[in-house]
C-alpha cells in the first residue's frame, strides 16, 4: 500500500469529522473504524500498544472540557472556575469520540508507514521538491543516532561528576551538548550527500517507482465513505452542529 494513500485516507476522514461537533457523527465513524481495523491485519497487541497514548489523551481532553467547557442547561457542580453542566458534558462526550475517531485511524495507518517509501511517494506522486523530502528523510535517520548520543552524553555527565544536580538543569545541559553533536553530524552528512551529487543541476531519477493503483484509490474511498456516512447520520438524526458558521 502506498504511504501517500494512507496519508490521504486519514486526512479525508479528519476533514469530514471536523466539519461538525456532535456525538453522533463521531460515534458512527468510530464504530465503522473499529469494524474495519481487523481488515488491516495488525495484531491486537500491536494495536493497543501503538494507540495507548490516544486512549489516555482522549479522556483527559474530555475531562478538561467537562470541567471548563461552555456552560448551558442544568449546572451540576460549581467550584472556583470549574462548572459542570449539561452543555459541557455533552461537548465533552462529542470531543472524546471525535479525538478517538480521528486519532485512532491516523495512528494505525501511520504506524505501518516506512519513511523511505513515504519520501518516494511524496516526491514522485505529490511532486514535493526532492531536496526537501530527502533532506527530511536523512534527518529522520539521524534521530536514531541522536538517541545513542543522548545515552552516551548522560553516562559522560555522570563520569564528570555533574549528574547529581537537578533533573531540569541536567536535561538542558544534555540537550545543548546533543544539539552541538547533531549539528556536527548533520554537516558531515550534508558533505557526504553533496559528494554523491545531491543538489547537482539536472533532473533526478528515482530508483524505485512509487505506484498508485486501485488499492490506493480504494483506501482513500473507504476513508471518505466512513466520513461521509458519519456526516449523513448526523444530519438525519438532527445532530448536525457545524463548527464554522
Amino acid at each position: 500500500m502506498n504511504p501517500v494513500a494512507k496519508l490521504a485516507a486519514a486526512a479525508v476522514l479528519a476533514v469530514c469529522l471536523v466539519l461538525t461537533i456532535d456525538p453522533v457523527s463521531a460515534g458512527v465513524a468510530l464504530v465503522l473504524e473499529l469494524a474495519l481495523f481487523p481488515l488491516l491485519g495488525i495484531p491486537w497487541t500491536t494495536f493497543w500498544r501503538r494507540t495507548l497514548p490516544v486512549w489516555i489523551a482522549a479522556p483527559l481532553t474530555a475531562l478538561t472540557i467537562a470541567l471548563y467547557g461552555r456552560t448551558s442547561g442544568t449546572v451540576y457542580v460549581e467550584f472556583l472556575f470549574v462548572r459542570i453542566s449539561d452543555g459541557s458534558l455533552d461537548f465533552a462526550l462529542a470531543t472524546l469520540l471525535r479525538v478517538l475517531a480521528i486519532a485512532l485511524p491516523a495512528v494505525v495507518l501511520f504506524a505501518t508507514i516506512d519513511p523511505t517509501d513515504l519520501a518516494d511517494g511524496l516526491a514522485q506522486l505529490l511532486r514535493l521538491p526532492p531536496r526537501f523530502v530527502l533532506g527530511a528523510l536523512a534527518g529522520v535517520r539521524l534521530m536514531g543516532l541522536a538517541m545513542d548520543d543522548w545515552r552516551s552524553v548522560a553516562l559522560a555527565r555522570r563520569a564528570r561528576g555533574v549528574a547529581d544536580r537537578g533533573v531540569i538543569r541536567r536535561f538542558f545541559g544534555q540537550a545543548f551538548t546533543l544539539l552541538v553533536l547533531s549539528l556536527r553530524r548533520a554537516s558531515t552528512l550534508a558533505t557526504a550527500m553533496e559528494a554523491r551529487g545531491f543538489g547537482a543541476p539536472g533532473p533526478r531519477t528515482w530508483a524505485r517507482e512509487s505506484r498508485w493503483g486501485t488499492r490506493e484509490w480504494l483506501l482513500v474511498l473507504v476513508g471518505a465513505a466512513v466520513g461521509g456516512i458519519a456526516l449523513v447520520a448526523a444530519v438525519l438524526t438532527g445532530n448536525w452542529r457545524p463548527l464554522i458558521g
Partner: protein
Amino acid sequence: MRSSGWGWRHAARLAWATRGLDLRIEPGERVLLLGASGAGKSTLLRALAGVLGADEGEQEGSLTVDGEAPAAARGRAGLVLQDPDSQVILARVGDDVAFGCENLGVPREQIWPRVSEALEAVGLDVALDRSTSALSGGQRQRLALAGVLAMRPGLLLLDEPTANLDPAGVVEVRDAVARVLETTGATLVVVEHRVATWLPIVDRVVVLAPEGVVADGSPDAVLGRRGAELAAQGIWVPGHPPARPARLPQPGEPLLEARELVVGREKVPVNGGIDVTARASQLLAVTGPNGVGKSTLGLTLAGLLPPVGGELRATDVLAAGAGPSPHRWRSRELLTRIGTVFQDPEHQFLARTVREELEIGPHALKAPRPELVDELLERLRLTRLAKANPFTLSGGEQRRLSVATALATRPRLLVLDEPTFGQDAVTWAELVALVAELLAEGTGIVAATHDAEFVDALAGARLELS
C-alpha cells in the same frame, strides 16, 4: 587532475588552508597524500570532489578535474569520509548505494544493475533491503565506497577511510579498494596517517604542507628520504615507530574485582562470566572484536552502567568509605575514585573553554585547585588553547583534553575507551608516555582497545573477550 597555484581559505579564517599548490595527477595513478594535520589535505580532497561551495570560502589559482571545474564535473570524483556513522544516507543498503545514481539522473533500469555491481566490487554480500544501521563500521565504510562506485567515478578520493575502524575493518576496506582499482582502473587519492595500510596499493606519495607540495615521488623514495621528518609530524611511517616507555612498574593492590560479571545495557546482557581484577599501577587491557562488549565492560567497571549479573566489588582502598558497588556511588563520589575517558571526547565536554572544562571536576568537589589545572594544561600542551572552545579543537587536542578532565580530580582508577582511535603518531606517543607516568604514580588503568601496539607497550594484564 591538475592544479596550479591553487589555494583555499575557509570563510572567517585569516590563514589559508592551503596555498600555491602545483600538482598534477594522471589517470590511473594511485596517490597517498600525507602531511601534518592542518596541511590542507582534507581541503584538497573536498575541493576535488566539488563539495567546497563558493559560500564556504575563497579560492585562488586553478584546480581542474578532467579539464573542468570540479563542481561542474560532479560524479567524476567520488569521496569517502572518515566517520562511518555520518555518511550512511538512507535506511536500506540498496537505496543508499542507488542514491548517487539517482542524483546524477541515471535512468531507473540502469540503476539496479549498477547497485549490484558496486556491492559486489566492495564484497558487501547483504540483501538490498538490509537495514544500514545493522552494519558494522567496516561494512558501513564499504557501503559508502559502493555508493561512490555506483556513480562510476574516474577519481576515487578517500579521506582517512579506515581511521575509525578496528584492525579487521581496516583490512576489509583496504582490500575492497584494491579490488575496485583492479577492475575499474580508477585514479586514487587517499589521505591516511597509517602509511603501512596503503603502501601495498599506492604507487606515488605526495607530502603536503600549507605552503604547497614539499615532497613527491615513489613511496620508497619519499619515505626513505623524509621518513624521520614525517614521523615527527605524526605520520605512522614503517621503520619509525613512536617512542615507548622503557619499563613498567610492579602491579599494586587490587582496586576493583569482578566475579562471574555479566555486563549489558538496559538489562540486555552483552557478555558474561567475566572474572577480572583491576590493580593499582597496572594497565588492564580489554581486547576482542567489535561488538563483543569491550566498551560496555569498561563503562560497567567505571560505575556508569549497573552490572546485569554476577558481582562487581570495589575494594576498600578504592571505595574509601563509599560502599562496594561503584554504580551506586553518587556522580561526585566517582570523581576521586574512577575517571572515565570516552571514545568520543565530544560526548563529555560541558564548558565553553578548555580551562573551564578542567575546572568542572574540582569545582564539583568544592575543591578548586587552580595550580593543578595549570599543571595539567602545561603537561598536556593545552596552555595555548586555554581560552579555546573544546568543540573547536582538533582530534588529538580533544583527546588530550578529555584525558586531562579525568585527571583533574586525581582518580585512583582510570577507564579509557579506545584512547588511541584515529590518533596520529605524535598524540599516540604522548598518550603512551602519560599513561606510563600515571602507572608509575600508582593509578590503576583499564583500557578497552583494538590497538595492539598500545597493548604491547603498556599492558600488565590482559582480558580477551569473545
